[in-house]
């Protein structure tokens, strides 16, 4: 099992490096570092532009390969370069990553856990009301973009607050300035409710469908027949033997799922105007900030791969066949 995980980790490391390079190259090609100097009146002096480009290492006259190389050597020393507003990208990302991770971890754990649970119950009670409601509900949720869910939740919260006559749920930003101690904690928690909900709803819909479908696949196999032949009832055969077996194929989609979850979290965070990684990338794209964009992409890639690794560990734990 350790060998398996070590191999996966090595694979992930190579992929992370490649994704980082790809991110930098794409950012360099797609973003125009001169964009913020254009249209100024009076025009920015050439000297100043050159100076600014030299600081960020994004002079278009330098060959892309050598720009990439110097950026990578910076990365080797733990620096992601300087952003256009002269701040180190590394510290900016470190700040924002905390914000993003908070939502990501909470949302993923809740979303996947609840999703699997709903899927199991739905499969066990196939065609009963619970199954029908969750199946059709998840269909609609999956057809609804995350930001629409977010807006709907905000509208709902506004109505709730109006009805209650006070701020029951707060949802703009991450926290209300001025709170201290315990009040600050509850304030932050209150701000977390809606974004988490927005993320979790989508994940529950997706994962309950996976789990339900996988369970129903197992239902048709000899595995359940075998369990029933031992003396299990249909339901206990499905629960005792089906759940774990059904989770195996799901965990093989790890990296893909991780990317999906991360994108969902990013969109949620943007919709609630949190100052997270998504916003940073969006800003970077608007300001032609190559280093910030490349840095964000690199961190994202690492995050996706880490999530993928977590899923791999789960997979190895679930299925003895990979523990060789």
């Amino acid at each position, binding site marked *: 099992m350790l060998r398996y995980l070590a191999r996966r980790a090595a694979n992930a490391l190579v*992929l*992370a490096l*490649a*994704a980082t390079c*790809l*991110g930098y190259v*794409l*950012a360099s*090609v*797609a*973003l*125009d570092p001169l*964009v913020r100097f254009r249209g100024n009146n009076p025009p920015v002096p050439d000297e100043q532009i050159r100076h600014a480009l030299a600081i960020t290492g994004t002079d278009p006259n330098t060959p892309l390969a050598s720009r990439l190389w110097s950026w990578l050597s910076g990365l080797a020393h733990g620096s992601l370069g300087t952003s256009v507003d002269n701040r180190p990208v590394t510290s900016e990302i470190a700040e924002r990553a905390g914000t993003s991770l908070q939502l990501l971890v909470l949302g993923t754990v809740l979303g996947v856990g609840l999703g699997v649970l709903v899927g199991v119950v739905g499969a066990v009670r196939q065609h009963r009301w619970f199954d029908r409601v969750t199946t059709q509900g998840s*269909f*609609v949720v*999956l*057809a*609804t*973009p*995350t*930001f*629409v869910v977010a*807006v*709907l939740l*905000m*509208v709902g919260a*506004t*109505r709730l607050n109006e009805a209650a006559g006070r701020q029951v749920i707060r949802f703009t930003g991450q926290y209300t300035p001025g709170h201290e101690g315990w009040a600050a904690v509850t304030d932050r928690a209150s701000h977390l409710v809606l974004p988490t909900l927005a993320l979790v709803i989508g994940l529950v819909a997706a994962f309950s469908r996976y789990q339900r*479908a996988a369970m129903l*696949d197992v239902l*048709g196999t000899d595995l359940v027949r075998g369990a029933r032949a031992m003396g299990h009832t249909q339901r206990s055969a499905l629960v005792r033997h089906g759940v774990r077996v059904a989770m195996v194929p799901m965990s093989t989609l790890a*990296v*893909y799922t991780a*990317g*999906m979850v*991360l*994108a969902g979290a*990013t*969109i949620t965070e*943007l919709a609630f105007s949190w100052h997270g990684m*998504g916003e940073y*990338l*969006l800003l970077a*794209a*608007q300001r*032609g900030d190559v280093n910030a*964009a490349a840095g*964000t*992409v690199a961190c*994202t*890639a690492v995050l*996706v*791969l880490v999530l993928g690794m977590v899923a791999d560990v789960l997979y190895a734990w679930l299925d003895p066949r990979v523990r060789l």
Partner: protein
Amino acid sequence: MTTTNDVRPLLASVIRPSGGVWSRVLTSRQAWVGATMLLTLALWALVGPALHPWDATYVDLAAFGQGPSTRHWFGTNDIGQDVYAQVLVGLRKSLLVGLVAAPVATGLAAVVGAVAGLAGGWVDRALMAAVDLMLVIPAFYLLVLCSPVLARAGWPALALAIAALMWMVMARVVRGQTRSLRERGFVRAACFSGAPLWWVAVRHVWPNLASLLVADVTVGVGTAVLMEATMSYFGIGVRVPDVSLGTLLAAGGPAAATRPWLFFFPALALVVAVCAVSLVGDAVRDAIDAGGARG
């Protein structure tokens, strides 16, 4: 529903192509509901403007930010444009983006997957490494990264960019299926007889994955529409002067609590459209899975 109920088995028995997937699709209630919704919606997007006098860009100086009424069915926005007309225009654009992006993505997946699966060796490894690489960076991030370029190029480029970020998972599936097909007797027999790669792909691989690919296109339309809407909502997708459901939602979002019609009508159109497409796609996929399970 009674009429369709009578028609379904009949149609299935008449068409009944080899394999049985399509007959299962045709007998699936889900597929019929989805198809009916989709056709209605498409019909509406086409003839809808004729039912209502307003043009999407016309400014009604007598109605700024008014709610739904007999004059403006879906209300008007802050500068007096008719929301009904705008939703129709937006729906058309959104569906168009989806209809361009999904087949391109599936086509790419079919080619890459089949080549990787049949060629094997380093070609396979290189293509799959590329797929892995693209899966590591979430599609949304790549789209944001490329948004300055896309802004200059207009909606067809956006559609293609979305397609370029949707094919990877399917390419893996096609590769996996191709590899198992390659172990099948008929593909091996063709290879023994000296069939070149393209022959095997065209004659053996794609025909046997037809239903899978169709399902992918259908599901892909929904995914692409959702991606477009999300991009546009954050201001990096479809841009003025083009109107899509995403741009309408972006415009209506801030006012969702005060002037809900600006947000809810486009949102409803979007959800219904995506639901309809995924109902059909899902039914096709279920039919394939049922066939697989029964052998």
